[in-house]
């Protein structure tokens, strides 16, 4: 082990910022992070062991105790559940003879749930040793069971198990006119970098991750940096290290458009990043790729190599005296790292805990330097705008939301996949296109977004009406709203980073309170208490995760209050626990099960 870790540290130039890279390798090699490895890494990187333990315990894909040689994770997204996930994982558990959450006694296989893996258009999905499995069914599970029991190496498993489709159904402005390699950079240098930023400003492009911050402003602010009041000259600018980060930590359940963009439009994305670097004066960029998209890693590395070969990355890009390169960093299973400051912490080799703001990343980001963090789709759009001009983009969309939005559509529809629409498109027309019928409602923007009912189909996709980072989940009338809300609420409790009190404790309390109501133990005051708790979490949480964690409850409570009320008992007070169940241990100890060893929940029922 000593040599393995030594080599690993050397490959990573003993950089503490590369801690996640190193731990991913250790986890993959040993199936856990051994104590001796922690001690050695701490010494080699000159960081404390507690930082390493903190990181290991923070990210879902790292473990302090051994997982199986084959570590199977099944996606827990609501869409996977709708495709029969529960019966599949039960079947898998039975076939492999391993309980969910456990490692089989022989150490060969372990099985667990994991948050949405970004394959909602081809679920039920999962991961084996980090690699995506799609369209799981019983025959595939039989096949997987055999492969595991024969202990066949992963690279000898049949390809069809790992088949990931793009499913681009409705290409629009961006997807139907891919730009030529290098053309955005050539246009930008020809037009002038300042002038190109003006074009991006003119295009009205806003961040595609969901928050919708104006892209040109962000780039401009980063270019200005913390010290200068206005644009500085090129010589001064070059002394300031700046960074460009592409946020490909696409973790919002129901979203998978970045997966497709990185699979088929990676050149455009990297070109957008390079364009941004040229404009703001950065020399180093990072693609923060969610761990679940490990299957894209090698392909993306070869795209980067191709671009270096073509003079579009590296030193003296397009012979303009501009140096810039991009490094790919893999996440390790933490939804919170989609939050830009948590992502930066993670890139620095730390736990993904959102920072206090101000200062914002544009002035103090990666390693305290000015940093632009943008979504995959934003960089791609910026590259196209550099080629086609600001008006080309701004002529599409609405007054406040220019251009198009790429949606990941999944759930109850006959054609799940990728759709690109001008902003301002009505929900009704989206539903027609994707083949949705008998619709109960739609979750727009993922669990952190809004649930809309079937009375709201004339509403529009736009920042000013229904904003979305891309997630669009359709539910038909056979679905139970409370099941959906329950899945989302459990998701947030699982993904809370735990930094601030309202989110750490609140999301767990919310889970308990909702379970109480759904399990039929809620009484008159419980829906009021639920709503109060939601407001507290929403108003006081540190970051976007907590501020939106109560949205599934709040948006459905607003639309279907009777649904919550109907689960309540008609008494004024109901304890939060099951009195009779609480006596189970006592009954076992006393070896009694007669009527006297039972208690009714409320006196009236006796």
């Amino acid at each position, binding site marked *: 082990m000593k040599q393995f870790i030594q080599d690993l540290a050397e490959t990573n130039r003993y950089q503490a910022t590369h801690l996640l890279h190193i731990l991913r390798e250790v986890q993959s090699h040993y199936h856990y992070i051994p*104590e001796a490895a922690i*001690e050695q890494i701490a010494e080699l990187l000159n960081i*404390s*062991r*507690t*930082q390493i*333990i*903190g990181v290991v*315990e*923070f*990210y879902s894909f790292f473990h302090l105790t051994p997982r199986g040689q084959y570590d199977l994770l099944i996606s827990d997204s609501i869409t996977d559940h709708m495709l029969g996930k529960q019966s599949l994982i039960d079947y898998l558990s039975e076939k492999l003879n391993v309980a969910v959450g456990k490692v089989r006694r022989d150490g060969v296989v372990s099985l667990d749930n994991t948050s949405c893996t970004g394959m909602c258009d081809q679920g039920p999905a999962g991961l084996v040793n980090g690699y995506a499995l799609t369209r799981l069914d019983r025959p595939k599970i039989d096949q997987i069971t055999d492969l595991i029991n024969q202990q066949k190496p992963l690279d000898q498993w049949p390809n069809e198990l790992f088949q990931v489709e793009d499913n681009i159904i409705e290409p629009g402005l961006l997807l139907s006119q891919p730009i030529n390699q290098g053309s955005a950079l050539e246009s930008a240098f020809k037009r002038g970098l300042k002038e190109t930023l003006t074009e991006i400003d003119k295009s009205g492009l806003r961040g595609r991750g969901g928050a919708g911050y104006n892209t040109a402003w962000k780039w401009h602010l980063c270019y200005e940096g913390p010290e200068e009041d206005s644009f500085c000259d090129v010589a001064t600018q070059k002394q300031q290290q700046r960074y460009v980060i592409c946020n490909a930590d696409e973790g919002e359940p129901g979203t998978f458009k970045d997966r497709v963009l990185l699979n088929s439009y990676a050149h455009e994305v990297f070109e957008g990043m390079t364009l941004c670097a040229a404009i703001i004066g950065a020399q180093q960029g990072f693609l923060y790729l969610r761990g679940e998209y490990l299957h894209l890693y090698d392909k993306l590395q070869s795209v980067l190599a191709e671009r270096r070969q073509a003079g579009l990355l590296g030193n003296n890009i397009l012979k303009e005296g501009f140096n810039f390169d991009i490094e790919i960093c893999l996440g390790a299973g*933490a939804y919170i790292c989609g939050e830009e400051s948590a992502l930066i912490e993670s890139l620095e080799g730390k*736990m993904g805990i959102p920072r*206090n703001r*101000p200062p914002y990343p544009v002035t103090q980001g990666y390693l305290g330097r000015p940093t632009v963090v943008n979504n995959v789709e934003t960089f791609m759009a910026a590259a196209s705008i550099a080629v086609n001009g600001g008006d080309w983009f701004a002529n599409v969309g609405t007054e406040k939301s220019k251009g198009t939005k790429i949606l990941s559509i999944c759930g109850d529809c006959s054609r799940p996949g990728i759709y690109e629409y001008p902003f301002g498109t009505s929900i009704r027309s989206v539903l027609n296109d994707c083949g949705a019928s008998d619709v109960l409602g739609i979750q727009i923007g993922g669990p952190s977004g809004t649930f809309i009912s079937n009375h709201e189909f004339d509403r529009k996709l736009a920042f000013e009406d229904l904003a979305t980072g891309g997630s669009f989940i359709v539910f038909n009338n056979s679905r139970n709203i409370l099941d959906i809300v329950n899945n989302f609420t459990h998701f947030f*409790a*699982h*993904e*809370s*980073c*735990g*930094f*601030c*009190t*309202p989110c*750490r*404790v*609140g*999301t*767990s*309390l919310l889970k*308990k309170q909702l379970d109480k109501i759904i399990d039929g133990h809620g009484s008159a005051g419980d829906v009021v208490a639920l709503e*109060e708790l939601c407001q*507290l979490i929403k*108003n*006081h*949480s*540190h970051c976007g995760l907590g501020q939106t964690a109560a949205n599934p409850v709040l948006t459905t409570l607003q639309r279907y209050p009777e649904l919550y009320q109907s689960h309540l008992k008609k008494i004024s007070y109901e304890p*939060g*626990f099951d009195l009779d169940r609480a006596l189970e241990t006592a009954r076992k100890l006393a070896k009694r099960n007669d009527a006297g060893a039972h208690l009714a929940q409320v006196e009236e029922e006796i």
Partner: protein
Amino acid sequence: MSKTITIDGNTIPFEDGQTIMEAATAAGVYIPHLCHHPEYTPHGSCKLCTVKVNGRTCSACTFPAMEGQDVLNNTKELNDDRQKITQMLFVEGNHLCPGCEKTGNCQLQAVAYHLNMLDDHFPHFYPTREMDASHEDVLIDHNRCIFCTLCVRASQQKDGKDVFAISGRGINKHLIFNSQSGLLKDTDLDTADQAAHICPTGAILIKRTGYQVPIGERIYDHKQIDQVSLETEHHQHGE
């Protein structure tokens, strides 16, 4: 003419670089807090110091004071929410005040009294948490840790050590110690360290000193936390 903000309608001066908390404390205005301590880098995690700045919710301990800010602090709405946040801290761990040797000297308990907290409101988690009594002079009771990181910061910023850290995610967060065994006794913590005395609850206790000051004569037995806080922190912020 110095720059000013208003807090609950009162004009308060501030200097560039001060947070709202620092400006308030220097002016003798108490904003409830637990994870904040004037000698250490602000953390912003407990959220008790939540104030409204021009209508926007902010943590006073981390948010910079700026000209034109109209801050709401001592309002019923904010104090009600602070009370609920304090209740969250109580139900998340196992805080049994009558049996805790920190009672009367405990900031969590004192802030709860200050906010008129009369019950726990939320259902208890009753988590299973351990104690570490391995160290000769210092006892750790994880049941009472509220993850404020004051011991982490004190050890790093004052003691020049790195004894404590918070590990884990979400509701599974926990305090860990920087030793190969994971035990406190194998760290370089000394009773003279600031980190051993900074805990706002009874999670870090100095052994054999618990009842040297009898109950009834302790810090918060006769004074409210706002008064104590301003007396002890005023000069530190005013410097």
